[in-house]
């Protein structure tokens, strides 16, 4: 399994955890295009907070690296990393690269 696949698996595991917490009828699909927060997103801000924590923890379990997703940069990015599962995956891949994990 490639590092990219490992990252996607970690993020989809966090999506599963998130879906377990969401109210009935609200669900995030484990696919890159699935909207998260903002345009078309179904999440409340509190759901996003829980989801970000899950992603940080799953990434730590998978790669052994502690990342902080919601720093000033993420919040101020013109294109929010929290728009879709795919944009978040790209953003986390960038954070991992900064921490010496280049995804092959």
């Amino acid at each position, binding site marked *: 399994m490639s590092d990219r696949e490992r990252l996607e698996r970690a993020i989809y595991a966090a999506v599963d955890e998130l879906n377990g917490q969401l109210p009935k009828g609200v669900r995030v699909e484990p696919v890159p295009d699935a909207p998260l927060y903002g345009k078309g997103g179904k999440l409340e801000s*509190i759901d996003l907070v*829980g989801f970000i*924590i899950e992603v940080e*923890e799953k990434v730590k379990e998978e790669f052994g690296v*502690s990342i902080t997703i919601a720093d000033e940069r993420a919040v101020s990015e013109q294109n929010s990393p929290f728009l879709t599962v795919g944009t978040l995956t790209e953003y986390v891949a960038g954070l991992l690269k900064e921490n010496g994990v280049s995804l092959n």
Partner: protein
Amino acid sequence: MESASTESPVLLVTGARKGIGEFLAGHYLERGYRVVGCSRQPAAREGEGYRHFCLDVADETAVRRMFAAVADDYGRLDVLINNAGLASMNHLLLTPAKKVRDIFETNFTGTFLMCREAARLMRKRRFGRVVNMASVAAPLKLEGEAVYAASKAAVVSFTQIAARELADFGITVNAVGPTPVATDLIKGVPREKLDALVARQAIRRLGEFRDVANVIDFFIRPESDFVTGQVVYLGGV
């Protein structure tokens, strides 16, 4: 005395080596909790149901490491008591900036870090009780305690807002504000200053460890799930 089992709730108290923290560790062990304590120096306490970590509460890496160990070993955290505190009595004109930073690091940053990491663990079970340590130094506006009181005022503001931010996760956040209690924290305070301070309380005596434990007992009861963002000052302040 109830004995702790693997089903028993887990309570973490900071500053557990001495004073109020040491008392609280024993108090909750007697009540069947599994207790995790931490302090900068090793603790004398050991034995079944108790685990100690040596760390500075303001050291983010060390705090994260401790919570990772708590998550691995216990898989849960029910109660956090942010007891660790640093005080320094001095006129503001004579207070070095380093002392200000040290006090805020321990009293505020430490409380924040512990609360953040604890809440991350507590939210998994949608249950948690956080109790922070305020102080009557803030509402009484004690001269000579400007920096200490300011750090405790910060703890109060943090407590009230954290209560709102964590409510959706089933976590309550409250604070107890002790009057002076005979511990190392006030050993440098002159007797007449203490007497004058106690005279401003509705009930004029020094606080005791049990007074603090009594308020914490109330905050952490399962029935107190509708009590959050509150600060209870002892002695009628």
